[in-house]
């Protein structure tokens, strides 16, 4: 379940905190639609603007055009801000870190040209901060942008992302609702879907993500929606649908690493490890992101390919070195990797720092697991409870809590968590899924 927030803000997430869901949503959606039809005649424009917080995709050409515009209008703050924002998107897609540096330079330039009420640059800075997992900064920029222009959806998107990651879920739902009210486009619908996912309403999450797909105006937005439809299916134990969604996305964006990862996971769940390895390898060839490396490494490990898994782990360790040298906060994958394949104590330290910066459920879960691996199960349980406080249906979170409970001797609750984990997604993890089954067997044998 650490998946969604890890791709920081591409665009997914939320929608409002409704008490009893469907009706309110349906009404809201109807109103949004009406408002949208009346208020935004230019679909192209809309897609372009929403890209500020929306799906990534192949936007390199757009970046080139924006560079050209900046060359022509070097004193125009909006041109600089748009370039910076586009570079943030590009960095997210290609995992090209240098693009963040470029993005910041462009955005700072824009702010230097127009320090106050610079909506585009404020949104861009917010997106940049979120992409770098600096969510407090992202929140500040989003609020600034909203003061500058209270009716710009993209600003609410960043606000919602930051609030979510900072653990302020109710506020984030409100922000998503506002965003969707302003413009029910792919970007706001994807965020709405995420709010349902967080709260464990997978059905709604799927339905709304389907709407986000239909509303998607760019290939990037479509790829993004397919990726998440695939993972929603997979994480609810439906690998066949997951595979289909991933394939649909890849038909349009054959080199999208997120979709390749989704297909790899679906293949793995369907018992086709060869194709899973190939897809992971292809994803890593494009961008060696920690989640792909960890996924492939653990898959190889489960297949008994020690050397191959070690190769992936070596790269993860190299990334950890760089992270530490830069003093950046640790990500969920890095903590889990350290806990399972490195030094659990180190993982605890990383998680402590991370959770204070970003008290998000996935971070609580990673913290819980690190504590457990370090033998601190009491504290671990408290964190695991926090991770599941929203009612999120995450097999991994449940497995973690079940295992912690088992260590604490609470076998009944442990068994229930483990059962639920496997019921949610029988293939949730190449190594842990079978561990969960073993644990259940052991508990049953003991009783």
């Amino acid at each position, binding site marked *: 379940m650490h998946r969604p927030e890890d791709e920081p803000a591409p665009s997914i997430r939320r929608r409002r905190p409704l008490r009893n869901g469907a009706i309110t949503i349906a009404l809201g959606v109807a109103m949004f639609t009406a408002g949208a039809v009346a208020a935004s005649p230019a679909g192209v424009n809309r897609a372009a603007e929403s890209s500020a917080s929306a799906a990534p995709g192949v936007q390199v050409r757009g*970046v080139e055009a924006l560079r050209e515009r900046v060359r022509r209008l070097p004193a125009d703050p909006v041109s600089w801000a748009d370039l910076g924002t586009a570079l943030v998107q590009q960095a997210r897609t290609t995992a090209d870190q240098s693009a963040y540096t470029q993005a910041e330079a462009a955005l700072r330039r824009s702010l230097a040209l127009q320090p106050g009420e610079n909506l585009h640059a404020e949104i861009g800075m917010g997106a940049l901060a979120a992409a770098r997992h600096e969510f407090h900064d992202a929140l500040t920029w989003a609020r600034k942008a909203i003061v500058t222009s209270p009716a710009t959806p993209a600003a609410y998107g960043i606000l919602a992302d930051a609030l979510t990651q900072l653990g302020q879920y109710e506020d984030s739902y409100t922000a998503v609702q506002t965003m969707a009210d302003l413009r029910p486009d792919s970007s706001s619908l994807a965020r709405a879907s995420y709010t349902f996912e967080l709260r464990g309403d997978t059905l709604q999450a799927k339905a709304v993500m389907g709407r986000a797909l239909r509303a998607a105006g760019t290939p990037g937005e479509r790829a993004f929606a397919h990726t998440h439809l695939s993972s929603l299916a997979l994480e609810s134990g439906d690998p066949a649908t997951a595979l289909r969604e991933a394939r649909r996305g890849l038909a349009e964006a054959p080199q999208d690493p997120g979709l390749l990862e989704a297909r790899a996971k679906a293949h793995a769940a369907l018992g086709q490890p060869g194709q899973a390895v190939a897809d992971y390898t292809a994803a890593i060839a494009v961008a060696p992101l920690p989640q792909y490396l960890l996924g492939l490494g653990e898959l190889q490990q489960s297949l008994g390919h020690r050397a191959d898994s070690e190769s992936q782990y*070596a790269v993860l360790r190299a990334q950890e070195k760089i992270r530490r040298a830069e003093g950046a906060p640790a990500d969920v994958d890095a903590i889990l990797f350290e806990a399972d394949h490195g030094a659990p104590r180190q993982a605890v330290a990383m998680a402590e720092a991370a959770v204070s910066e970003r008290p998000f459920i996935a971070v609580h879960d990673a913290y819980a697991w690190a504590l457990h691996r370090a033998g601190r199960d009491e504290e671990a349980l408290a964190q695991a409870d926090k991770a599941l406080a929203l009612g999120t249906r995450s097999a991994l979170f449940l497995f973690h809590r079940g295992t912690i409970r088992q260590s604490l001797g609470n076998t009944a609750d442990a068994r229930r968590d483990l059962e639920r984990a496997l019921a949610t997604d029988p293939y949730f993890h190449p190594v842990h899924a079978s561990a969960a089954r073993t644990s259940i067997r052991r508990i049953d044998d003991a009783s």
Partner: protein
Amino acid sequence: MNLLTRRRLTAVPLAAVLLVPIAQIAAAPAATAHPLGNFTVNYSTSITLRPDAVDAEIVVDRAEIAAAQQRPLVDQNHDGSVTKGEAQAYADEECAVLTRQLGADIGSRKARWDSGPSMLTFHPGEAGLETSRLACHLTAEADLGSSTAIRVTTHYDTRRVGWHEITANGRGVTVADSTVPAASPTNQLRHYPRDPLAAPLDQRTAELRATPGDGPAARIVPPGLPGSGPATAALNKVSTLFDTLVGSRELTVPVGLLALLLAVVLGASHAAMPGHGKTIMAAYLAGRRGTPRDAFTVGATVTLTHTAGVLALGLALPLATHLAGETVLVWLGLASGLLVTAIGLQLLRSALRGKANHHHHHSHSHHSHDHHSDHDGPGHSHGSGHGHGPGHGHGHGHGHDAPAGLPPARRAPGTPSTDGSVVVLTKHAPASHSHSHSDRHEAAGPARSPARRGRWALVGVGIAGGLVPSPSALVVLLGAIALGRTAFGVLLVIGYGLGMAVTLTLAGLLLVRLRDRIAVHAAERASQRLKTLGRIGPAATSALVLLVGIGLTVRALTGI
């Protein structure tokens, strides 16, 4: 990176000189974060054309994380350390893969690469990690003895984000019409640009034409504008800006217009540089019965001639392989030196004799005809030494040439009233205007046949001023052609010629006015001293021309 595409031509010799030492210094890269991000895999492909082969050097620079991913593949026995043998084995294997991925069509034939040495090295990077650098050397036999089209295509694994550059150079072979720069903008992936605006380079193909011999392009490249001081510095800035504009990725209307404007400015300032055709013209105008109309005639002629000359040369150079050789330039230089010498001799002779000018015309015409045939087109290109010396040579030749073939008294009325004053003035002209044999004719007998001959002489002067193609204009044109913007280049050259014409015309107009004023004075009291000067001046100037001619000849001879 843009830097290079923009300034391709100018950058060639400079980069060649500078890069060697830098390459050595840069052998130990600083241990800082990879400027392109630590995921990147960057490729550089350097093509070198030789008369009998095409060499390629492929360099793959892997940033920290990419190098970490590569390491298990290198460390075959997984013992955590990479031995020399392991590194070599990996390098050979990887280079074999890259060799298959590098396609080159040489003429109609596919290059068959033979692999040379390959090498994998590790370099300190961020956070105690290493970056890796793989270098592969390949060579393919090729016969580049005649003009050959070459197309290089890379099929490397570029799924990962990174820098992809191609460069093409010639050694004993000229690279013309290249779509890629000659020198690596990153010094073969050792230094990346830090401009936040710069997109990573993404070159995957190169198209070029190899022509035998070391090319003129490199030799023509100007040493910059002569002289020093703030004015020159400012001009150099303008020309740098100009190059930037011409090379800019996408040409927009404002950028194009600005470039055109700058071309005019550069042309105007070029004409103002010392030792240009301007001096000839000034002398002619001053010496002859000049009117504002004459000044315009000269200006127009200059523009036309210059544009035509540069265009002929610029368009012929890449095509006519035989003109490209260095030797041709040397011989042309010699011819022009001899010509100037001959002119100088002739001038001196008539100056000493103080004879009528008809003779001059005949004798000059001779030379100029020879000269003409030698030099039309490419001949002038060599602009040996920025065209000062030969410039005058041509100028004189043509100046005298034209009148020769025509009856000397056909000119339309003009402004008879000024004739009188001209006579007076021309006697004294040498005193105020440093040189030029042209004065000579006037001194001899301006009043006699000024009409028709005068007009043709003016046209000749214009031709003289324009014929020596300005090296910078040529570079601009060649650069534009290399960038695939021939039409734009032609436009710029025309602008450049116009700029020159403006300066020359203004100078001419100024002289006309000045002369009229002096004439009044002179007519009133033509002092004895002035008369003396008038007599010595022509001899002195013709001696000077002779000296220049000899100097050029000697220089050309040493070059053979």
